[in-house]
Structures are given as structure tokens and as C-alpha cells.
């Protein structure tokens, strides 16, 4: 059941109405049932995986809570990590690993064929696995207490608004909210509706519209790279920008709908995006983009590895490792590793600048003489760099990404004709893409919390009208589902 489906338009109001009609003590059960129903609409058999994750992390959490000594907790932590990361590996990375082994074997000319496992990637497995692991990790680190009510914990793992695409919540923030009795609050409810409407705007008006252009650029066709071979440098360049915006609107749109849906029931989820395209440097960007995942890796990987240390090489290794793991979390493919590895390198470059170059400049007294780079130049430069790196994320293969990037960086591949810019869908579709981008950036002027007070109805009506007239066929999958 996609958020942008007819079924969800019936499911959400029905769940919210039931939620407020039921006595408080039964609400968790109804929400749990609704969440499982929501997930089962994709494939009921994968509910079993959620149950395994729920039971193992809960059990491990319970066992750890009984131990006072950190050492005694370790076996249970490993148990939880092995079972859940094992499931994640099997369903998401097994074929990728076998493929990679096969490629290495082929390089040596050996006639060995790795088997191909017939497994489908369960929707949202990366998200709910990380959310449930944060529970056991927090208990291990002593940041959270064990939840005594198994039903509430099961709801924490499966809470439908954020089950399949996040935000990845932390137990100490979400569990208390799921236990609390919420009353219908007018302001909060309306704010939730506004958030949902804005999420649909991002998804249907911007992301799905830009997808048409991006798909044409990346069209695989007969050769696997028909699109990349056929387009000129200018279309490849525009395609990179459009994909970066598409990915952002697709994912942040989903997050907004998730946050808004939860808010209708009085539950506050964390913000996952904070206008990332206004970031001025790469560190600033990662504070604004997919915040729930970035902070997850920060808390459970980067910091335990040592985080930022005075030793530059150590910090660089930590940053690169986290970036690569983030890449592989996103997708089982080398294109993701390259894209995120590149962003890791940018982070390292920034750290080198701050820790070495800037210090040296200050020590030599040059720092005050250097001209400051205007903010808008920094914003555009970062946005451009990020967009170009996302070519790897969207490309079907490394070869396809190289063809496109090759065209972008070779001036002889730039043909500035209307046809080479607008591509097959034509001028009208291209104009709609530009309009969608304009509307997105214009919407950055709205208050971030989407509190409109007495103008809420005007906002809702206006957003509905824009979605109704300019939204593209709302049956497209969310891009991040594959993660």
C-alpha cells in the first residue's frame, strides 16, 4: 500500500478515526494490527521477518537489561546484531556479494558459476532493521531502558507511518509517545494535514514529474545504456540536477507524509530533511539530509570508531568507512559505494581544509586577507557537486554513469538545441519540470514547521489544487523503497 495509492487514502482516515474512537488501552493493539495490515498489503509472508526482528531484538534487550556489567551484555548484543544483520544481508546483499565474487572469478578466467538466490527484497527491511537495532544498541550503551510491554515494542518496530521508509526513530523518543494517551488537538491535527499535503506535493508534483525526464536520460533499452548513449552533455547535466531533486522530493515527500500521518495521532516523528539544498558545505548537507540515518550512523558507527580525532588520518578513515557503509545501506551495488564514497572524500577534504589548511593560513596570517566566498556560490557549488555524484545512484551500471559523466565533462558533447535539451517528451513536459522545480524552491519560503494558523485552509486548498492539476499519475513507486 503506497502512500500515494487510493487504498492509503481510505486506510489512513479509517485508522485515525478508529484510533480516537477506541479507549486508550486498546489503541496500541489497533495500531499494531493496522501496521501489520499495511505491511501485509505488499507481501504477507514478509511479516514473518518483522516478527523475527521484533522478537529477537526484544528478547536481546530484555536479557541485556538484566545484566549490570557491560561485558555480560555483549553476547546478547551480538546475538541481536547477527540475527538481524544476517537477515538484512541475506535478503539485500547475498546476490550482490555472489555477483561480485563471480566477477572476481571471471577475471581469473575460472569456470565457476556462483548460484543466484531467488529472493525478493522485503520492503523497508533496511529501515525497520536499523530502528530495532537502535533499541538493543541503546540498551547496551545504557541510553534506554527495556520496554516491558511487548505489544508496545512490536508497535515501535512496525508503526506504519514510518515502517517502510523511516524516519528511523529511537526507542527513547518513540516508545513513550506510543504509550501516552493522546487527545485530538486541533492545531496539531491541522499541522499534520498540512505536512501530509506538502509531502504529496513533493512526491506527485515534483518527484514524479522530474522522473519522466530522468528516466529518459537513463533509459536502458536494448543495449542497457540507450539513454546515456543517445543524450547530449546538456541533457545529462540537466538530468543529474533533476535526479538529485527527484530523489530529495521522493524521499522527503514520503517522510513528510509519514510525519504528518503520525502527527494526526498525536505522535511526533523526527524531521528527516531540513532544506538540504540550502547547505553551504558537505558537513552542513549531511546535517540536513536523511537526518535519521545520518545520526544513526553517527551514534552507532562513527562515534564508536573514534569519530573526529586529532589524528587526521584516523578521522579520514572513519569518515570514509561511514560513507561507504551508508552507500551500501542504500543499495546493493557498486554505484552506491562510489557515489557515497565520493561524498566521504568530500567530507575528508573539508576536514583537511579545517584541520590543516585553515590553521596554516591563520598561523601565517593569511586568513584575514582571503576573500570570503558568497553563500550563494557555496550553495550552488555544493548542489552541483551533489547532483553530479548522484548520477551513480541513478545509473543502472557504472558504465552508464561514466558515459553520462563523460558527456557532461566534454564540451564537444554539449549540443545546445531545443531537442537535445527537452528530449523526447517535448517542450511542454520540460516546462512542467522547470515549473515543478520552481514551485519546490518557492515552497522553501514557507515556514518550516508548516504552521499556518487561520490560513491553514488556504494552504490546504492551494496545495490540493496544485497537486490536482499538476500532479503526475500517482502510481509510481517511491525511489527509496529499493533501499
Amino acid at each position, binding site marked *: 500500500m503506497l502512500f500515494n495509492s*487510493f487504498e492509503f487514502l481510505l486506510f489512513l482516515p479509517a485508522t485515525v478515526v478508529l484510533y480516537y474512537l477506541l479507549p486508550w488501552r486498546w489503541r496500541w493493539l489497533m495500531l499494531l494490527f493496522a501496521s501489520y495490515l499495511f505491511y501485509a498489503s505488499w507481501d504477507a509472508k514478509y511479516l514473518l521477518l518483522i516478527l523475527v526482528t521484533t522478537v529477537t531484538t526484544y528478547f536481546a534487550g530484555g536479557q541485556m537489561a538484566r545484566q549490570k556489567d557491560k561485558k555480560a551484555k555483549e553476547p546478547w548484543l551480538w546475538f541481536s546484531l547477527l540475527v538481524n544483520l544476517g537477515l538484512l544481508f541475506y535478503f539485500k546483499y547475498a546476490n550482490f556479494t555472489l555477483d561480485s565474487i563471480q566477477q572476481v572469478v571471471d577475471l581469473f578466467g575460472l569456470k565457476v558459476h556462483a548460484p543466484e538466490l531467488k529472493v525478493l527484497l522485503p520492503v523497508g527491511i533496511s529501515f525497520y532493521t536499523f530502528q530495532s537495532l537502535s533499541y538493543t544498541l541503546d540498551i547496551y550503551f545504557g541510553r534506554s531502558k527495556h520496554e516491558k510491554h511487548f505489544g508496545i515494542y512490536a508497535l515501535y518496530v512496525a508503526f506504519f507511518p514510518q515502517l517502510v521508509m523511516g524516519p528511523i526513530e529511537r526507542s527513547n523518543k518513540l516508545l513513550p509517545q506510543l504509550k501516552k494517551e493522546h487527545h485530538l488537538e486541533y492545531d496539531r491535527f*491541522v499541522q499534520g494535514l498540512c505536512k501530509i499535503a506538502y509531502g504529496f506535493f513533493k512526491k506527485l508534483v515534483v518527484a514524479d514529474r522530474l522522473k519522466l525526464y530522468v528516466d529518459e536520460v537513463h533509459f536502458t533499452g536494448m*543495449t542497457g545504456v540507450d539513454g546515456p548513449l543517445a543524450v547530449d552533455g546538456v541533457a545529462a547535466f540537466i538530468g543529474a540536477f533533476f535526479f538529485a531533486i527527484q530523489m530529495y522530493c521522493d524521499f522527503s515527500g514520503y517522510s513528510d507524509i509519514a510525519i504528518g500521518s503520525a502527527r494526526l495521532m498525536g505522535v511526533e516523528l523526527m524531521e528527516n530533511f531540513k532544506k538540504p539544498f540550502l547547505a553551504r558545505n558537505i558537513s552542513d548537507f549531511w546535517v540536513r539530509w536523511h537526518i535519521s540515518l545520518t545520526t544513526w550512523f553517527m551514534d552507532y558507527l562513527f562515534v564508536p570508531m573514534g569519530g573526529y580525532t586529532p589524528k587526521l588520518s584516523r578521522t579520514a578513515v572513519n569518515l570514509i568507512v561511514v560513507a561507504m557503509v551508508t552507500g551500501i545501506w542504500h543499495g546493493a551495488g557498486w554505484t552506491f559505494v562510489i557515489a557515497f564514497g565520493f561524498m566521504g572524500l568530500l567530507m575528508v577534504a573539508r576536514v583537511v581544509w579545517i584541520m590543516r589548511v585553515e590553521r596554516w593560513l591563520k598561523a601565517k596570517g593569511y586568513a584575514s586577507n582571503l576573500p570570503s566566498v558568497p553563500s550563494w556560490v557555496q550553495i550552488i557549488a555544493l548542489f552541483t557537486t551533489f547532483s553530479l555524484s548522484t548520477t551513480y545512484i541513478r545509473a543502472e551500471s557504472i558504465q552508464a554513469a561514466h558515459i553520462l559523466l563523460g558527456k557532461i565533462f566534454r564540451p564537444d558533447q554539449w549540443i545546445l538545441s531545443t531537442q537535445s535539451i527537452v528530449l523526447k517528451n517535448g517542450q511542454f513536459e520540460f516546462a512542467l519540470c522547470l515549473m515543478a522545480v520552481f514551485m519546490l524552491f518557492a515552497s522553501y519560503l514557507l515556514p518550516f514547521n508548516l504552521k499556518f494558523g487561520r490560513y491553514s*485552509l488556504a494552504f490546504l486548498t492551494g496545495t*490540493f489544487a496544485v497537486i490536482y492539476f499538476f500532479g503526475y*499519475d*500517482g502510481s509510481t513507486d517511491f525511489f527509496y523503497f529499493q533501499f
Partner: protein
Amino acid sequence: MLVRKIFLPLAGIIAVIALITDVAVTNLLTKKAELSNVYKVAKLSDEDRMPYEIGIFGPSIARNAYYGDSLGEHYYNYSMENAGLIINELMLNMEADKPKQTPIIIDFHFRLMEEDTTGSSINIRTYLPFVRKDKRVKRFLEANDRYRPHQSIPGGRYFGVHTSYLKDYLAEVYQPRKLYHKGGVFNREAPGQEEFDRQIEFRRERGEKPFTRSMEGSKVYERLFRENPDRLFLLVGSPRHYSVLEMLPNYEEMKAWGAEMQAKYDNVRVILFEAEYPDRYFKDTGHLSLEGARVFSGQMRETLKALGLYYTGEEKDPVWPPKSDRIAVVKLQADS
């Protein structure tokens, strides 16, 4: 308070906007844009209209190849872009269901049987106005996983495609480089030689998809031929650019299937046109230009006359000439 201040006014405004838009789109945009595929389905689903009409069905190649007036007064081009097996099946059955005796022309293209299991070649806006009116259309969308419940709701059915209708409408009004004529779409100008050479190079680099003969595809067409013995089916291979034919790996297999159909069914005739046309007769390596379409359609008319297969559509009891053992392969030259 929530109901009074938000839900009721919002629902009211939404309902008014949606219903007004529905009426406007249905009556202004879909019915006026003659070039659009919606118009073609509307025309085809109206059983009482055009009793003399001879319909031509196929993909965009056919839409660019058959110029109505050069063929005859009652010829109409129902071809649509990306029309492979699933779209042809719907359109041909709609035509065959009519109480008529006119021949049916099917562009004999090497993607004739190409199955699209995802239904992604179905342009949903083409069918939306008919989901409630015509059960065949609803069944077609359901069978191809393209039906969504909102498509049956007035006001909600055009959600997601408003701009597409507007695009069709504007394309018809403000498109000086194209000519729309009896369902055909024709480019007035051919591209420059440089662009042409680029396309040829790309086609050679990419290769060409082979003719795909599938059991399911064959069944669809055979059922059509078998269940409509009173309609003559002309499978016409319209001219392809030489760069296409030289890359097509199994042209002979395609001919063999055509010959098999002609031998098996009395109401099937196959005519393949192999043209040595100059590049200016093409708008690109895949489609004829206006000049090419006019020349070809005139030549096709004369060929059909010579084979005794030319019909005006007004014949009371059309008589079909006896079948030949072999399919007709006709070489065409540029018009002097």
C-alpha cells in the same frame, strides 16, 4: 471544530473544483484534440459512426506512414505510439465488433507481437474517459494492471493527467511543424543530413530488436482473423528506412509468419512494401515524413488497385480476390 473549519469547507472546495474540471476536460480538451489518442478511442467506441470507414492500426510508424486522403476518402489512421500487442488487441477488437464489412488494415511491423507485460506502453490518458462507458476499456486496463479505483470516479478520474490533455490540445493548436490529418501525424520538414547520419550511426551502434513471434501474440491475431470471417485483414508492411532493414536480424521470419497467416485464413492478405526512398522521405530513421507518407500512400493505393484489394469502404458486399500462394512483396522507388 475540525469538521466545521477544515473538513467540510475543504471537501466542498475539492468537490467543486474536481467536478468543474472533469466537465471541462471531458468536453473541451479530450473531444477537441483530434490528434490525440483519446479522440481515436472515442471515435472507435462509437459504433454508429463511420459505417464506411476503413481503419488503419499500428504503432507510431504507421501513424506517420498512412496519409488518409492519398488512400481514399474513408481511410482513417487509428495508429498510436507504442502500440504493440496489447493496444492492437483492444483497438482491433473494438473495430471488429462493429457491424461493418469494411477491410481492416494492420501495419505489419516487427513489433506486432511484442508483449508488454507491465502495461507500461499504455498511455492512461487515452482510455480514462471510457472507463465507465465501455466495459472493454475497463477490462483492458484491469488486465494490464493499469486500472485504479479513482478512474471510475467523476472528478477523480483525470487526476495525474490533466497536463497531458492540455499538452495534446496545445500541440494541436500550436504546432506549425506538424500536420494532423485523419489520425496521421506528419512532420512537414525532414531533419538535416547531419542529424540523420547521427541517427543511423546510433541505430547501427544499438542494433535492432528482432521480430518477436510469440505464442500469445499469434493467438491474439489468429483469434481475430478466425472470429471475424466477414472482415478482410490487410497486413501491410509500410516502408522502413534502409538502416532499419539492414539491422533487422530476422526479416525472413517475419515474412514467414505473414505467409502462414495468409495460407491459413481466407480473410488475410499480406503486402510488404520495400522502398528505396531517399532520406528526405523520412522524419527520422524510424518514421516517414509528410512527403514520404504522401508518396507512399499514393503508391500503396495504386498497388492495392493492381492487386484487386483496393476498397473505398462503400462497397455493399465487398468481394475479395483469390489468394495467392505467396505474400506480395512490392518494391517502391522515390516518386519522380
